[in-house]
């Protein structure tokens, strides 16, 4: 295959990947989840006020809903918000861009691992069209950025081992550290991967100067994070979701069994090709992480991988084996987001299997390519249909659907009205902040008064339930329905229509409907004495 043809094909694949990621990025029909709003809003808040939602100036680790999240996504989103303003597209654009760049990175990684331009092209194509890659590129997922950084780190590491040029090693370390600023999983996997990869080299101790230099570089780059490692901001997320933090944590002697069952779950064909994530928010109707037709290709790929001894096979195996560990150490079954680093090596194996299939069927290669092309086209179309048409019907509630319409309605109301949002989790405030309903400075003042000096120091709920005329809390409807001059916003599963219809003192101002036609929100206004 000529170089020009490879470049042209790769450009075409990247373009296809970009279309699949950016098409209807701002309006996927599902909604805009609170975690997305938190990442997006904090970027906007930093841009417009120089501080986050708590009034904290340029934090090292961000705090939202008592969950601490890493800063890279927020800081890198600032220029996008500068260009696009506080929009859903702006919040998701970085993830979509990272997902598109991952296609190119995957091409180079595959080339380094398998020394085959064809496998590299197939890998790029598979990343461009894979359900997991499309899904995580179409939402505000900082893990997608982490995956890109980690993959670039792996690529540079491979370049280093193939050329023995030290610059690649230092750049590789820098990218691994960057991935640790993007998402929690690489904080565990990246140091382990580098450590194991170093120790696995022949006479590795002879290069001790290089390793020590790399260690100090990593240390230097990690200093801001390390300064918080002993505070809840540094460890709360890892400890909070771990296997041992559950109410019914397994006894010590059962921990290996528990861990192994969770770990193997990440290699289960049923999970990878059928069931998908246990959390409905990360599920597309009818799809899992990969397409079902990729299962035989994965098996062929694995068989080929072990049959042909590739030079850098051990690094590939380290990546494959280490990637699911952070997810398996948490109590949740098959958490695709925490295991996001796993899916790229699996995709590479699928690509290897595809190449082997073409080799095995070389006599009818053109037919196989044609059938594959039609199959991929159908799969992608069906996946998009599932993602954009079916999933919004079944998963809208898991995606906080309707808060943009709630926000728009509140904006149009007289400013004298009190607004109470029925939300036991009190997390809906972030949607109103993102949609510019609550003035940022007003929220920052209230939140910073509440959090004080405890920003990094505690994971307790330290955020205001009331900011000016806005309240976010559980509503005690029987006792509050008589309040005057108030707008109540109820998710439809929190209040039956029979509880407000027929009351002359209440007016159902608006019903927001879900994509499937069910009521999503009831917005009720209490009628003042003067207007009675």
């Amino acid at each position, binding site marked *: 295959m000529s170089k020009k043809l490879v470049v042209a094909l790769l450009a075409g694949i990247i373009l296809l990947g970009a279309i699949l990621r950016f098409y209807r990025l701002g309006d996927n029909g599902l909604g805009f989840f609170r975690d997305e709003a938190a990442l997006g809003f904090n970027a906007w808040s930093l841009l417009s006020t120089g501080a986050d939602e708590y009034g904290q100036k340029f934090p090292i680790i961000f705090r939202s809903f008592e969950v601490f999240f890493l800063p890279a996504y927020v800081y890198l989103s600032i220029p996008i918000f500068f260009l696009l303003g506080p929009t859903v597209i702006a919040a998701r654009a970085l993830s979509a861009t990272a997902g598109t760049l991952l296609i190119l990175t995957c091409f180079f990684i595959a080339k380094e691992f398998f020394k085959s331009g064809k496998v590299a092209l197939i890998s790029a194509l598979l990343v461009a069209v894979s359900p997991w890659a499309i899904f995580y590129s179409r939402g505000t997922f900082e893990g997608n950025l982490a995956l890109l950084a980690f993959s670039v780190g792996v690529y540079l590491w491979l370049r280093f081992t193939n050329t023995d040029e030290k610059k690649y090693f230092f750049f590789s370390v820098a990218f691994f550290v960057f991935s640790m600023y993007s998402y929690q999983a690489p904080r565990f996997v990246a140091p382990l991967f580098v450590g194991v990869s170093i120790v696995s080299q022949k006479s590795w101790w002879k290069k001790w100067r290089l390793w020590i230099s790399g260690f100090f570089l990593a240390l230097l780059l990690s200093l801001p994070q390390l300064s918080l490692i002993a505070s809840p901001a540094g460890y709360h997320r890892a400890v909070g979701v771990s296997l041992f933090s559950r109410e019914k944590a397994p006894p010590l002697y059962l921990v290996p*069994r*528990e861990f*192994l*069952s*969770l770990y*193997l*779950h990440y*290699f*289960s*064909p*049923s*999970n990878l*090709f*059928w*069931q998908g994530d*246990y959390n409905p928010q990360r599920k597309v109707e*009818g799809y899992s992480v990969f397409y*079902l037709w990729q299962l035989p290709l994965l098996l062929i790929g694995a068989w080929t991988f072990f049959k042909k001894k590739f030079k850098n096979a051990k690094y590939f195996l380290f990546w494959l084996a280490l990637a699911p560990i952070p997810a398996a150490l948490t109590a949740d*079954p*098959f958490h695709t987001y925490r295991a996001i680093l796993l899916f790229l090596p699996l995709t590479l194996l699928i690509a290897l299997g595809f190449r082997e299939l073409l080799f095995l069927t070389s006599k009818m290669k053109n037919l196989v390519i044609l059938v594959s092309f039609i199959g991929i086209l*159908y799969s992608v*179309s*069906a996946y998009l*249909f*599932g993602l954009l*048409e*079916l999933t919004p*019907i079944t998963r809208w509630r898991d995606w906080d659907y309707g808060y943009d319409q709630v926000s728009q309605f509140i904006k149009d109301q007289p400013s004298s009205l009190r607004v109470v949002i029925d939300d036991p989790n009190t997390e809906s405030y972030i949607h109103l902040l993102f949609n510019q309903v609550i003035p940022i400075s007003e929220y920052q003042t209230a939140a910073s008064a509440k959090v004080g000096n405890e920003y990094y120091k505690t994971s307790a709920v330290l955020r205001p339930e009331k900011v000016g005329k806005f309240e976010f809390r559980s509503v005690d409807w029987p006792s509050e329905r008589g309040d005057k001059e108030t707008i109540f916003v109820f998710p439809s599963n929190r209040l039956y229509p029979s509880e407000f219809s027929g009351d002359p003192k209440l007016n159902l101002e608006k019903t927001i409907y879900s994509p*499937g*036609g069910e009521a999503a929100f009831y917005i009720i206004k209490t009628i003042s004495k003067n207007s009675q």
Partner: protein
Amino acid sequence: MAIWIIVTLLLTPWLWSLPIPKDLFRVNFQEDVQESRQNVVWKRGKIDPSPLTVYFVNWPREAVNQRLSVVLENLDIGNYFFAGHPRERVGVEERQKFFFFQFLLFIIGFTSPHLNKYKKFLVVYSSLALLAVFIFEWRSFAQTLPLAVPFIVLMALGLRQIMTWPKKWRILR
């Protein structure tokens, strides 16, 4: 090899209760098609009318998917070694089929030099068993018993392999 198979069989809790598979070959295509049609009607009723619906939401796809889900369920290692943990299935009684330690034997079985001798049998038998799962939708503890065969063979190979280890050590000495 026979002795290793017998030892493995004796170690396997799946067989201790002497399960007798019931309804192994019962199939009701008519009922399945009807159920698939109903699901499709429900889905199509929810989404905006579109010509694409015919291609992406249709009863043959729905019916095949239902059966494929059972096949994939049976490919899940967790259902054999961890009694369905951490993702217990709905409508199936999750029971211990193999012990946790037998998983090690299973993995070691793949490294056995004698595997080549059984490779064809394992591939053909497993394929046929999965085809049967696809057609007859075997899910229960007793129904899936035919699927134990490849596991037993691999574990026996693993056990046999382990027994060669001390000999190797003796040679090294």
